[in-house]
């Protein structure tokens, strides 16, 4: 195994298989060690490490659910796998609007795009 920097193409794709929860639990620590090395993660202390491992395990289960619900894509371990969904939303997402407001704008705004021809 080799560590890779943030800018490099990962050498190994960690994906989730179709095994049961016990199998996932057994392999989780190995996957987590590989994840920590691959993405150069470091944690404050042993407690933080243990907490992130528990989050990572939950995300492995979540990735497996996503794989079942979204079979045409590949889901698995990403650089966000040690974040809870709430942490992920708070840190990496930032669209501040409601779709209702956008549709209101679409309904009568000077900024509504003219209809373009789409045939020929």
């Amino acid at each position, binding site marked *: 195994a080799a560590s*890779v920097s*943030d*800018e*490099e*193409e*990962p050498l190994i*794709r960690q*994906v989730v298989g179709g095994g049961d929860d016990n199998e996932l639990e057994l392999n989780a620590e190995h996957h987590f060690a590989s994840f920590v090395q691959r993405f150069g993660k470091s944690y404050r202390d042993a407690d933080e490490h243990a907490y992130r491992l528990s989050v990572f395990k939950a*995300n492995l289960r*979540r*990735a497996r659910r*996503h794989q079942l*619900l*979204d*079979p*045409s*894509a*590949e*889901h*698995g371990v*990403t*650089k*966000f*796998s040690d*974040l809870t*969904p709430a942490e*992920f*939303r*708070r*840190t*990496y*997402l*930032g*669209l*501040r*609007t*409601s*779709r209702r*407001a*956008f*549709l*209101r*704008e*679409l309904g009568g*705004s000077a*900024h*509504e*795009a*003219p*209809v*373009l*021809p*789409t045939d020929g």
Partner: protein
Amino acid sequence: LPDDFDWRDHGAVGPVKNQGSCGSCWSFSASGALEGANYLATGKMDVLSEQQMVDCDHECDSSEPDSCDAGCNGGLMTNAFSYLLKSGGLESEKDYPYTGRDGACKFDKSKIVASVQNFSVVSVDEDQIAANLVKHGPLAIGINAAYMQTYIGGVSCPYICGRHLDHGVLLVGYGASGFAPIRLKDKAYWIIKNSWGENWGEHGYYKICRGSNVRNKCGVDSMVSTVTAIHTSKE
């Protein structure tokens, strides 16, 4: 409309960027759209600054005064286009580099390299979205990012996905046939540029299925905006 179209093949898409631990996706979506529009107006790919919007843009939605651009705490692409119309435009990434933190505004009007001529919101219609993409360049869009935390590759086409939009990205193209093994057929898809670095997804890109008969596209067609640019030459 062509069956397949990808602005990356035509030079209108800049490099994949990384927003870091900062909720500034909206500024990357807006800058990506203006980079493409500016390329169409000038024939030159100027990589534009997101940090200028993070630091200086506090524009609010006219219909929802609580929806204001707020740097790493989030924003909205159409607010950003309004700000760019008022401020005059964007500096280059080189002149106003990204830090991934909220900071004091250091905008220098003399360093503007791209300016907005106009912007529009596009109706919730796949053909109109494709037509606006081909005519005006990459489009700023909103998406529900629920599946993106675990996404590695392929065409995402979830059976269930919310339409609540929480992430700003850039629509750069579409394809007619991405193979979906489980459905044993080719699926049409949108090509989306994200701002989480090249080591996320397919070299920084996400594919999501398209088609009027496809449900659960994570709201990808419900908040689409297009921008046109005017050429700004340095004195």
